[in-house]
């Protein structure tokens, strides 16, 4: 079965650079969620989209933005990167008909 696809798998950036993470949800899923997971921490909700519109907002910094496109893929844009942004970034997709979320394998972002 198709799963949530994230790219890139690993990303290395320097401070003050920008990064773009991509997420391709499971086909026919209408909702996408972004989570940030620091080392040894639980995933923290950043932002979500339903039918290409922003749905909920969590602890997402103002330096970050995201959008969902017409083909339902989503991108998380991160600017003015800081060392503390180093983390695993997960995308999850789901359907409004059920609460269960399916997670991708994540993008490991390292800010040097």
């Amino acid at each position, binding site marked *: 079965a198709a799963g*949530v696809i994230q790219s890139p798998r690993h990303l290395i950036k320097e401070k003050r650079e920008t990064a773009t993470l991509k997420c391709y949800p499971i086909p026919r899923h209408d*909702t996408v*969620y972004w*989570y940030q997971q620091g080392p040894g*921490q*639980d*995933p*923290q*909700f950043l932002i*979500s989209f*339903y039918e290409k519109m922003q*749905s*909920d907002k*969590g602890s997402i910094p103002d330096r970050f933005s995201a959008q969902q496109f017409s083909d339902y893929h989503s991108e998380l844009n991160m600017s003015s990167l800081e060392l503390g942004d180093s983390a695993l970034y*997960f995308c*999850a997709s*789901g359907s*409004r008909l059920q*609460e*269960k*979320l*399916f*997670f*991708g*394998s*994540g993008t*490991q972002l390292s800010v040097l």
Partner: protein
Amino acid sequence: GESVGLHLPTLSVQEGDNSIINCAYSNSASDYFIWYKQESGKGPQFIIDIRSNMDKRQGQRVTVLLNKTVKHLSLQIAATQPGDSAVYFCAWEDTGRRALTFGSGTRLQVQP
């Protein structure tokens, strides 16, 4: 959202034993709970879920128990295997928001 924590950050069990992972939640309005398993370098993987109108749900080798009186959730794994070694997170759907909020993870180590 309100925070949820797990009592034990690391649980070590012998292969073949039963494992119990606990989670205490404080949001009494939550009506959906879920357990995820996260292996190193991978995204959270769905294990089992339960709604607040139930107090027990069984899956294959796993059972989730929900005690709404004391706001306690537990995951029982029968005949624990080395492949069960991972970090386990409880999560719940926050009131008024579709996104899941994660509790602190518990690392399960299975000794052969």
